């Protein structure tokens, strides 16, 4: 082939490639899927590659098990970080300084009897009711006795559901100040792996099964 023809050929190649390239970039670029397939969490502990699709589909985990504050369908799932922020925040302040429980409002304004909540206390007996955690121990739960958090959740949310009022089951943030981002992830991922007895948990060497991508 003469060099003139070569020049022509390459010019044509350049023009076609440019046209196809511009077209692919401008019109055919892949949209990111509505429900993520894999997610990369970049963090100081070493990046974590989370196989979202496999967790939801192959391991048969319901969306709401993880997207605990969504509407349950997972369709409008907020990023965890929108509540669990990276800056330090108290873990649970439902009853802490920013308590979201207004005792007077509940006991007097709503006309509830003391016994509706302090279920083993009768005002006419006198004295003060025992703290719930005397009997419902934090972190201890068995067939007979609810743990502290469960006791509160069941009672508070159960009554709200009966009255048809908020905050309901998924309105975690109305009662709580969310924990730190890293705690939120570690607890959710690792607790579930422990429950299933599968997937990386808190053991030695397990950190490196999630971190390091």
């Amino acid at each position, binding site marked *: *082939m003469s*060099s*003139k023809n*070569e*020049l022509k*050929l*390459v*010019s044509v*190649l*350049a*023009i*076609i*490639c*440019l046209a*196809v*390239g*511009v*077209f*692919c*970039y401008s019109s*055919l*670029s*892949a949209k*990111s*899927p509505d429900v*993520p*397939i*894999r*997610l*990369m969490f970049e963090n100081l502990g*070493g*990046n974590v*590659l989370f196989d979202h*699709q496999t967790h939801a589909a192959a391991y048969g985990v319901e969306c709401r098990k993880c997207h605990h504050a969504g509407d349950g369908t997972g369709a409008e799932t907020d990023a965890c970080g929108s509540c669990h922020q990276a800056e330090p925040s108290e873990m649970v302040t439902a009853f802490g300084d920013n308590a979201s429980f207004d005792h007077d409002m509940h006991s007097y304004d709503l006309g509830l009897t003391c016994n509706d909540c302090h279920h083993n206390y009768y005002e006419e007996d006198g004295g003060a009711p025992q703290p719930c955690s005397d009997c419902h121990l934090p972190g201890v739960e068995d067939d007979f006795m609810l743990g502290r958090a469960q006791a509160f959740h069941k009672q508070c949310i159960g009554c709200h559901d009966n009255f048809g009022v908020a905050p309901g089951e998924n309105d975690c943030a109305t009662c709580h100040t969310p924990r730190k981002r890293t705690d939120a992830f570690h607890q959710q991922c690792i607790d579930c792996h422990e429950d299933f007895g599968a997937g990386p948990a808190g053991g030695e060497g397990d950190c*490196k*099964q999630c971190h*390091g*991508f």
Partner: protein
Amino acid sequence: MHNTLKLTVSHAPFWHNGSRISSKSSNIFLASLLAVVPGCLQYGPAAVGVVTLSIATAILWELAFNFISRRPFSIGDGNAAVIGMMLAMMLPATTPWWAVVTGTFFAVVIGKEIFGGIGANPFNPAVLAVTILMVSWSGLFDFNAALLNYDFDFMAVYPLVLSKSFGAGAVDSLSLADLLMGKQIGGIGATFGLGLIVGGVYLMLRGYIRWEISIAFLAGILVAALGFSVANPTQYAGPGFHLFTGYTLLGAFFLATEDASSPVNFIPMIIYGLIGGILTVMIRNIGVHIDGVLYAILIINLVNPLLDKIRPKAIGKGV
């Protein structure tokens, strides 16, 4: 005193198989399609966009440089198109357009033209360009992050990251046949091993690339990887793994063999290839980088002029 007619001879390489540069370029171009087409099928239009934009802009940069430096238009030799193709083969399918355009600028202008054009480049232009991109925007080459939105029927984790961060055990489940057939994520034209091998063998048989370099490079990989994995089998993956992952095959057949930056004599070619392969595995296993192929090739490009000093004794006097 006698009149001597001085003939100025340019740098090595001198290797002629009787055909024009353009036929060499077109053969390499076509051979690379064996790996690029499956890559495009795997990644869809996004990959086609990267490949075509890369080829087009590589040609256009060369044209622009020819124009500015008032030299004859050299794009007809097809070398710029080949450089564009090689560059695209190393990129993930989601590379943004500006990175492709910058990449081809680095390759064609910085990697080749400012040294005087084809034949004068000390480094493989595409390798140099990708290395510059990698150092400048390392996030672009995080294949795991770049390809998050693709749904594959195989484990969608870049194998070299697995072996590097999680040890040899993490890659036990990968079958070599799957890796060879491109069931792995990576650069657009770097993962379909079978295509790269067939293309490479074709180019060797036609004499467009030197078999000595490719074979020595692969031998270097095998020997070094075997050494590492024998020494510590839990940490270091075996030779087969290193052969079929990352840029190994692309490097052995298409990158290390670029002729301006590689030696021409038998012994130097063997040494050149061997060092490349061994360095690749060393960088992967004990260096900080995920893949070592590109750095290894830059280093052997660098020692290439030295290696070329090992040559047969000239016959005659005073030479």
